[in-house]
């Protein structure tokens, strides 16, 4: 099983890979061990992506609207204007990629997990995220190219039972997909 320090290193490596591949820029990553995040004044976005399995918790990314805009411009090559959904998506996609990369990096450590769907919150001024006392926390401040953000990973180690539940649910939904596709094909061909 990985120690907290090893997990923290794996998270930093995952951030490096994500930033280098998406933005072709090496990020500056620092430990940020404050008990809360107090972002700069102005509109802020928090995107939280949960995960469950042998290790369970969530990864939250905090950034200003301005940083989100710069990220979108870099990803799309154009300014999205006031299309706020695209701002949320950019942060959601980055949390997804960071956790996905982390999952790959820790795949042989016994820490398997299933990714969830990003949830978004926004605030007009400061935004603070506090975790449960049950969870461990790794928090990092990241500066990359012309934008910056913070990430915090709250986690706890679970039994194997949760993982089994997710696998069974996925098999059941796949059967539903097969029936739905066959139903539509029959309808179109009749």
């Amino acid at each position, binding site marked *: 099983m990985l120690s907290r320090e090893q997990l923290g290193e794996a998270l930093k490596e995952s951030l490096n*890979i*994500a930033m280098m*591949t*998406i933005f072709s820029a090496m990020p500056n990553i620092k430990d940020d061990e404050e008990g809360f995040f107090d972002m700069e004044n102005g509109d802020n976005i928090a995107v939280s992506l949960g995960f469950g399995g042998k290790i369970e918790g969530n990864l939250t990314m905090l950034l200003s609207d301005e940083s989100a805009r710069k990220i*979108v411009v870099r*990803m*799309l*090559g154009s300014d999205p204007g006031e299309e706020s*959904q*695209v701002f949320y*998506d*950019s942060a*959601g*996609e980055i949390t*997804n*990629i960071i*956790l*996905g*990369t982390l*999952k*790959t990096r820790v*795949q042989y450590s016994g820490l*398997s997990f299933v*990714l*969830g*769907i990003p949830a978004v919150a926004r605030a007009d001024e400061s935004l603070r995220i506090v975790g449960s006392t049950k969870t461990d926390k790794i928090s990092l401040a990241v500066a990359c190219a012309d934008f910056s953000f913070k990430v915090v990973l709250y986690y706890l180690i679970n039994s194997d039972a949760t993982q089994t539940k997710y696998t069974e649910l*996925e*098999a059941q*939904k*796949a*059967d*539903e*997909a*097969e*029936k*739905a*596709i*066959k*139903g*539509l*094909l029959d*309808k*179109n061909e009749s």
Partner: protein
Amino acid sequence: MKILVVDDSALQRKMIIQIIRKAGFQDEVLEAADGQEAIQLLGTNYKDIGLVLCDWNMPNMSGGEFLEGVGKVPQVAKIPFFMVTSEGTDAKIKEAYAKHPLLRGYIVKPFTPEQLKEKIDPVLKTMI
């Protein structure tokens, strides 16, 4: 021919479509935000769809569930299907090919535009 892009992130869909357009594909691209929407689009357009690019983690119905459903229906299983996902573990990649043995490719995010284009180019060339 049409391309079906399935991803719950509108931004990711835009990025993928940009890459497809830059590669020279000018016909219709269908967009779905989850597996359920993808089923509807696939079910009504399957004769015209020449390529499916699909994320794994999505609400309502995941890409893995959609992939498995597609793999079990011969009429649509032959459509070139690529998973495009941040799920890059060896176990997940094996799982994808077990769900759909004809799966054409597995692309792990993050990727550069060049990497995505290189993977799907053999299929795109048959459609342009």
